[in-house]
């Protein structure tokens, strides 16, 4: 089956820029540490191939946590690179769980990526499986 190249072939016209057909966004999700793997799995199910998790802590003062009956300030920040066309679905899925799961509250924001380099990495990040033939990007 013929596959399409991710970027068009370079031509003699050097003024023509390579424009990625699929935009990518960096998703930053902050959740309680105990729920980090759960949320990372949800995000991964939306064709997200690259994520990294970083331990963090919330900045609410201990008296506020006590007042609210909370003990948890240990957080995890999940950084995920997602396709722009999937971000709305991911956000919706996260929002549903933030609202419904006990102890599962969190915050998620998305930031657009403006540049990247490497077509294989780009194909990996946007899960462009149709562009890979026998393990090598074409």
């Amino acid at each position, binding site marked *: 089956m013929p596959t399409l190249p991710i970027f068009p072939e370079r031509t003699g016209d050097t003024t023509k820029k390579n424009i990625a057909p699929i935009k990518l966004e960096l998703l930053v999700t902050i959740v309680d540490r105990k729920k980090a793997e759960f949320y990372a799995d949800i995000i991964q199910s939306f064709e997200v191939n690259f994520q990294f998790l970083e*331990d963090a802590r919330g900045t609410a003062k201990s008296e506020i946590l006590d007042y609210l009956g909370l003990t948890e300030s240990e957080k995890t920040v999940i950084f995920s690179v997602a396709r722009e066309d999937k971000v709305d679905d991911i956000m919706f899925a996260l929002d549903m769980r933030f609202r419904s799961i006990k102890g599962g509250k969190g915050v998620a924001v998305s930031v657009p990526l403006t540049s990247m380099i490497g077509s294989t990495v780009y194909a990996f990040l946007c899960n462009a499986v149709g562009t890979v033939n026998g393990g090598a990007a074409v």
Partner: protein
Amino acid sequence: MSDKSYEMIFCIINSGFSETVMDAAREAGARGGTVVRARGTAGKEAEELFKITVHPDKEVVMILVPKDIKDDVLSAIYKSTGIDTAGQGIAFSVAVNRTVGLG
């Protein structure tokens, strides 16, 4: 969900100064933040040229704020933990496309 009225402030500071940053940010109207531990690096030549010593132990404070108070929060952070203070803070903000979980 699609929401361009917020910005995410990143503040990179020497380890132990995250509370100072948050106190200043709260004064300017921020609600809360998240602290991640990090490790700083700098070129030796640049350190000598600018007479800045980069401590390797860093913290990154991430604060999501409404766009209309972003400048106030950045200014407050700069005054309390700017590059000329012991915290040696560097703060910047990025626009976010979408947000969930704030309500």
